[in-house]
């Protein structure tokens, strides 16, 4: 490393000193770090609520909380994990950190709008927290705000829905920014065919954010208006239609699951080639499968509603379209595995998380097919199988991808390396605990245990206890992982530009990157993103 040992890159370079240098910063890296800090903090809150849910379910009957508290707990767990953790997690945090550097730009297209999106996020998060402790109590509708319950409950749904609206606005602004940035700010030589796959997935994600998010905006506004005026737009007795709410809600919220998983797939597509020392297999197939998932995923929303009342023909169509989404998803899995084939694989911590992602995502994806098929869905609908399934894709996929990204890129942005041995221990506990918890949930769901109850029949006791024990292992793994990363970032060994021997542009700038990323001259790209010839990892 040529820089002096006191070099701290963008952590110190700022037009304003102190805390204002962060709160008023338009530097994409600072905004990314601010997003990451908030997202991880809220994740910890959400995870504690999740552990509380599991603890309540350790035995039939009331264990640590009553029915109303339980309803509020899983609602707040869902709202935090979906709207405040998963949706912004990789795009807003690592997208901001990496997108401009990876395409050779100095910042995003609209830096001020970028800061505004962070403020929208913060306002949304604060309002959501206020909603828990004020008014008629924490919302108890589930994160889906389904009518008619959401228009009738006396809990603080208005504020929570408005908070989600603000978070959606933040997401839209990020999406507009990223699409524009990728179109306009690629450096010389950075053709579409040389974009790193992470950028391709951010591009597909940003389009979903722009295309779909306004729909949840208007839906939530209508819920609030219904509650304020009692108009009856979703009340069948007064000419409305409650099923229409579900359609409007899922028109956004199904594409939203691809907002949560697509950038994660991009992270995995970066990590696998680096630690297999091979170019990614099937570059264009990977790029277009991202767009394919974004497109096809926007047409399948009603597969959440097979049990709500739809014509058989509509069920058939949505079931068919759901199976279509499996094709680009499978292309990705096969291409990752093909990249590993005959590679020189190094089991570094980011790689372990990436491999865990593939494993979890494959299980979650196949479970999705069982739910997408109308016949099996009627049996599995509203059981714990659904809960197990979406945790496999959302947490086992999106969450693990975020952890992979943290282990892969945080050394880049802090200039320091964490302890690898501890990281592997944390990963192993997390991976084992995760599978014990959610595989058991799938099993208990197939056996017929419904979701959303604080109580259950005695015959489900053993499996629930296994799942709760698994959640403790998982919690311990998370704790070890976060502590290890934190210690590493504060006082770990210093690393050079390229500790992993990776090939995308961010590894050619110092760690941490300076303000404006590149020195006097803009970079010029002359080759594809995964050309490992002659690239060696820096010692650290």
């Amino acid at each position, binding site marked *: 490393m040529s820089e002096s040992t006191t070099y701290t890159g963008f952590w110190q370079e700022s037009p304003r000193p102190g805390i204002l240098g962060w709160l008023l910063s338009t530097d994409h890296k600072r905004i990314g770090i601010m997003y990451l800090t908030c997202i991880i903090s809220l994740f910890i809150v959400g995870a504690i609520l999740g552990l509380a849910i599991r603890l309540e379910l350790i035995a039939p009957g009331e264990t640590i909380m009553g029915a109303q508290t339980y309803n509020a707990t899983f609602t707040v767990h869902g709202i935090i994990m979906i709207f405040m953790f998963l949706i912004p997690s990789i795009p807003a945090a690592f997208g901001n950190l990496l997108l401009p550097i990876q395409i050779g730009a100095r910042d995003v297209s609209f830096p001020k709008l970028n800061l505004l999106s962070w403020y929208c996020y913060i306002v949304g998060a604060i309002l959501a927290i206020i909603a828990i402790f004020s008014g008629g109590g924490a919302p108890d509708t589930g994160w889906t705000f389904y009518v008619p319950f959401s228009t009738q409950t006396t809990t603080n749904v208005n504020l929570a829905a408005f908070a989600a609206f603000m978070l959606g606005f933040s997401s839209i602004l990020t999406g507009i920014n990223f699409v524009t940035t990728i179109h306009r700010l690629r450096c010389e030589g950075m053709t579409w065919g040389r974009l790193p796959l992470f950028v391709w997935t951010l591009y597909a994600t940003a389009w979903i954010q722009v295309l779909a998010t306004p729909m949840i905006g208007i839906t939530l506004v209508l819920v609030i208006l219904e509650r304020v005026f009692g108009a009856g737009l979703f009340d069948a007795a*007064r000419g409305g239609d409650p099923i229409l709410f579900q359609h409007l809600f899922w028109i956004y919220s199904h594409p939203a699951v691809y907002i949560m998983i697509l950038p994660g797939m991009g992270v995995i597509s970066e990590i696998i080639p680096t630690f297999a020392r091979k170019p990614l297999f099937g570059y264009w197939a990977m790029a277009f499968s991202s767009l394919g998932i974004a497109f096809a995923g926007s047409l399948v929303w009603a597969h959440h509603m097979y049990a709500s009342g739809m014509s058989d023909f509509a069920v058939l169509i949505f079931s068919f379209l759901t199976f279509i989404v499996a094709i680009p998803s499978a292309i990705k899995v096969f291409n990752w595995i093909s990249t590993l084939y005959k590679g020189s694989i190094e089991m570094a911590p980011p790689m372990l998380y990436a491999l865990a992602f593939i494993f979890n995502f494959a299980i979650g994806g196949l479970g999705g097919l069982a739910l997408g098929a109308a016949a099996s869905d009627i049996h599995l609908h509203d059981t714990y199988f659904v809960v197990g399934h979406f945790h496999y894709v959302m947490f086992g996929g999106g969450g693990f991808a975020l952890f992979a990204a943290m282990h892969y890129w945080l050394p880049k942005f802090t200039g320091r390396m964490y302890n690898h041995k501890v990281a592997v221990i944390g990963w192993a506990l997390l991976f084992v605990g995760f599978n014990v918890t959610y595989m058991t949930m799938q099993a208990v769901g197939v056996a017929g245990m419904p979701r959303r109850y604080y109580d259950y029949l005695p015959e489900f006791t053993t499996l629930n206890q296994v799942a709760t024990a698994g959640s403790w292992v998982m919690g311990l793994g998370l704790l070890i992982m976060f502590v290890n990363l934190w210690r590493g970032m504060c006082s770990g060994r210093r690393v050079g530009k390229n500790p992993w021997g990776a090939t995308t542009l961010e590894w050619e700038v110092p760690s941490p990157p300076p303000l404006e990323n590149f020195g006097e001259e803009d970079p010029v790209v002359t080759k594809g993103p995964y050309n490992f010839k002659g690239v060696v990892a820096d010692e650290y």
Partner: protein
Amino acid sequence: MSIEHRDDTGARFGMWLFLYTEVILFSGLFILYAMALAKYPAEFSDASHKLNIYFGSINTLVLLTSSLTIALAVSAIQMGRIKQTLILCWITIALALVFLINKYFEWSAEISHGIYPGSEQLAEMGPGITTFFNLYYFTAGLHGLHVFIGGTLIGVVAVMTAKGKVTSDRYTLLENSALYWHLVDLVWIFLFPLYYLLYH
């Protein structure tokens, strides 16, 4: 400290993306309208007759004219005619105010007849008419909010033009505000026939 970066095409591109999100925002209400119209065609027609077509027509004329004035303002700034630009911006804002005042009187009249979301008189008219007026108030209300935002935006840009921050070679802000204003106009072009001009 930071290198000045300017990309007018990028700014316009971003604005078009944003306009797209606005279209989707309104489309939620249009979907509800389409479903309700299919369910209650006769009731929707009856309800439409209860609206005052003069208010609606005048507001259509007002908004179309304001779209013309803001488009002329963009042309004027391109030719460097600052004074003309400012006059046209202020006319646009005045027309926006006329629209909102008109709306205020229209809604006052309807509310005084007991027609508003959640009212008992409306509920007595049956589910079809209730749904029509619920959608009418929510859609026109959201549109009115956009008229207010758009007018404010044009006001801010006009002040910036007066201060010399928007000029003949740096007018993307005005252009984007005008684009927003055209969208507000466009939404109304769909609202007007759907709510005021329904006949059997």
